[in-house]
């Protein structure tokens, strides 16, 4: 009997030795005369367990991890190929609490199937959404997406259906679907997991979008830091063409949809939709004024839907199961599920897809198990480099677009980065400004100049020079950047800075030479008496 083994081919799994493990499994099976097939699935998103090896048994798939190549012979000794007991055995994969507690809709197949097998995709419900969409009028498809309550998962949270409606109504000889796969936020990897673990769902979502709004061409703009995702997606596109799921006659419907994968070139700003369009056109990724919206005048001046990977990858299940199925998950105006990415200094980092409403505390402690270092948690940054730093006291904030806005933060693309008590928030605030200076496209002054001035003024504050007046200046500068920047880069860089000032004022008020960084001290020795008002807190508010 053939034994079926799964070893992830996801970039994160490969980064900790999955290829070596897969080779060792094949070699060891050969040595023992066992017939075995090794499927390179995507990742289940339980990254502290990678490489996570699974074996198909009568009890379902049994998981082992984290597996090293050296451990593989011992696994065979323990009869792992029949689901045998071993110290690394985690039991049935679906019963692992981290996974069992999730509601996986967008990621239903990720880590389960062979990402480059169309038959596998079809067996697991693939292309049912497109099949239904092809029986509907364009307005009906758009209405279904609108009714599902799906909001853009890239960061801005704009209702996807409304965007589609605008493009559908626009008159043009050519329209485009552009997928924003420039997942630049630190702490995020969900787009990458989809492209590597279930690429056909993205292709299907884009095809549905094209049929809905009357666009016959699509582009995926993949960041160059994701060479593996780029290769996987390209192979999936080739397979979809071969099987008639892309091209001049999609599934014999007489409708055309062509798809091309393009590579970015290491510019964070190209995650901003208008910069991305400029970049696709072969220009510097300088942002455009809005209006006109890309939905009216987008790629090459034509009406264009620009959606994030996760938004497009969620469309097939909405079409397949219906708008109300999806809308029934979630809270308030945040409907459906949110794939959260938990990373940084956390024991169990990974992908957590649940209905909106999970609190940060539940996420970090129940799922994440606290810090990886074992030291006390001090700060959590949510929403990437432009997201706010939250202190422990705000961990009961639910993951919901509006709840985060109320705390002067943003959910963004759902990245959550945990820091222990060695973090220096003044340095993190400085980094936010430095990052903005490095990545600014240069079009508007608040961002281009403001970020550099921001680094300088934070340096002065850290050095203790005219602290009070420089704090006032920094707050003024942040106000200006918030109000006067052209796009979210300059406009949101103040979020991490102001939240650091608001919640961690003590880090900006330290005698010369004292530093949290790398000294491992719980608190700097000069710590103010507890409970006393901090002199800088008033300025920060």
């Amino acid at each position, binding site marked *: 009997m053939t034994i079926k083994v799964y070893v992830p081919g996801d970039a994160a799994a490969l980064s900790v030795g999955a290829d070596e493990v897969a080779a060792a499994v094949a070699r060891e099976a050969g040595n023992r005369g066992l017939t075995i097939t090794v499927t390179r699935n995507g990742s289940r998103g339980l990254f502290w367990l990678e490489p996570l090896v699974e074996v198909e048994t009568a009890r379902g798939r049994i998981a082992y991890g984290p597996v090293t190549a050296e451990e593989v012979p011992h696994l065979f000794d323990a009869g792992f190929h029949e689901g045998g007991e071993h110290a690394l055995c985690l039991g049935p994969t679906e019963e692992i609490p981290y996974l069992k507690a999730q509601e996986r809709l967008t990621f239903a197949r990720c880590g389960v199937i062979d990402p480059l097998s169309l038959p596998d995709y079809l067996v697991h419900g693939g292309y049912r959404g497109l099949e239904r969409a092809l029986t509907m009028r364009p307005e009906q498809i758009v209405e279904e997406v609108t009714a599902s309550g799906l909001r853009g998962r890239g960061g801005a949270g704009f209702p996807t259906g409304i965007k589609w409606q605008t493009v559908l109504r626009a008159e043009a000889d050519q329209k485009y679907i552009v997928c924003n796969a420039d997942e630049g936020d630190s702490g995020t990897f969900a787009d990458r997991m989809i492209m590597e673990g279930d690429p056909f769902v993205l292709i299907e979502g884009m095809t549905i979008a094209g049929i809905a709004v009357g666009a016959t061409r699509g582009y995926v703009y993949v960041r160059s830091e994701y060479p593996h995702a780029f290769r996987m997606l390209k192979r999936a596109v080739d397979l979809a063409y071969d099987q008639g799921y892309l091209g001049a006659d999609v599934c014999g419907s007489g409708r055309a949809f062509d798809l091309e994968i393009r590579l970015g070139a290491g510019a964070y700003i190209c995650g901003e939709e208008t910069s991305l369009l400029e970049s696709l056109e072969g220009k510097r990724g300088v942002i455009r004024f809005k209006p006109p919206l890309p939905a009216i005048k987008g790629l*090459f001046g034509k009406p264009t839907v620009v959606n994030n990977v996760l938004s497009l990858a969620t469309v097939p299940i909405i079409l397949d199961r219906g708008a109300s199925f999806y809308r029934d998950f979630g809270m308030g105006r945040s409907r459906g599920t949110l794939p959260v990415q938990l990373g940084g200094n956390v024991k169990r980092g990974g992908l957590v897809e649940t209905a909106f409403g999970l609190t940060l505390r539940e996420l970090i402690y129940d799922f994440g198990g606290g810090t990886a270092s074992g030291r006390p948690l001090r700060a959590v940054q949510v929403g990437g480099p432009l997201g706010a730093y939250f202190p422990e006291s705000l961990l009961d904030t639910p993951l919901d677009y509006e709840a985060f806005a109320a705390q002067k933060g943003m959910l963004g693309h759902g990245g959550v980065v945990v820091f222990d008590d060695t973090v220096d928030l003044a340095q993190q605030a400085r980094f936010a400004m430095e990052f903005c200076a490095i990545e600014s496209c240069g079009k508007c002054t608040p961002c281009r100049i403001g970020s550099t001035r921001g680094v300088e003024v934070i340096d002065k504050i850290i050095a203790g020079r005219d602290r009070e007046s420089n704090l006032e200046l920094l707050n003024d500068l942040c106000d200006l950047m918030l109000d006067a920047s052209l796009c979210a880069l300059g406009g949101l860089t103040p979020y991490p800075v102001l939240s650091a000032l608001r919640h961690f004022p003590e880090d900006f008020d330290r005698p010369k030479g004292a530093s949290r960084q790398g000294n491992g001290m719980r608190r700097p020795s000069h710590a103010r008496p507890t409970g006393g008002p901090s002199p800088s807190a008033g300025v920060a508010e």
Partner: protein
Amino acid sequence: MRAVTWNRELAESRIRELQELPGALLPILHALQDEFGYIDKAAVPLIADALNLSQAEVHGVISFYHDFRTRPPGRHVLKICRAEACQSMGCRALLDHVRNRFQVTPGETASDQSLTVEAVYCLGNCACAPAVMLDGKLYGRVSTEILDRLIDRARSET
């Protein structure tokens, strides 16, 4: 990294293959960098001519994007992530270590041409931080010891 030395005929043929694509400039620049390891300044007029752009426009695009190099890199290219998730797991120690061992800061090449070090902002491996990419291959949970081993192995292979 198996880059070939600059050669005009090869560059022209790569440009010809791609110049009809809509928005062909980035694909062309990537193709040239894949081939030669950098964009030679002699390529600028060739690209400008093929795409009917000014040389200034081509230069502007090359200089805008962090990926494009205008000088040949070392035999190996190490990208160290210095974004927040990797910061929380000590990527500063990796940068310090490389600086001490090779006397290079991000953007520089070691004097023996064996290694170019670049800073990147997120490799999408934030749950296995800190992360680095060596010659296009991603590594996670990297300590200074692991980093030394990776670099030594790469350097011994050429």
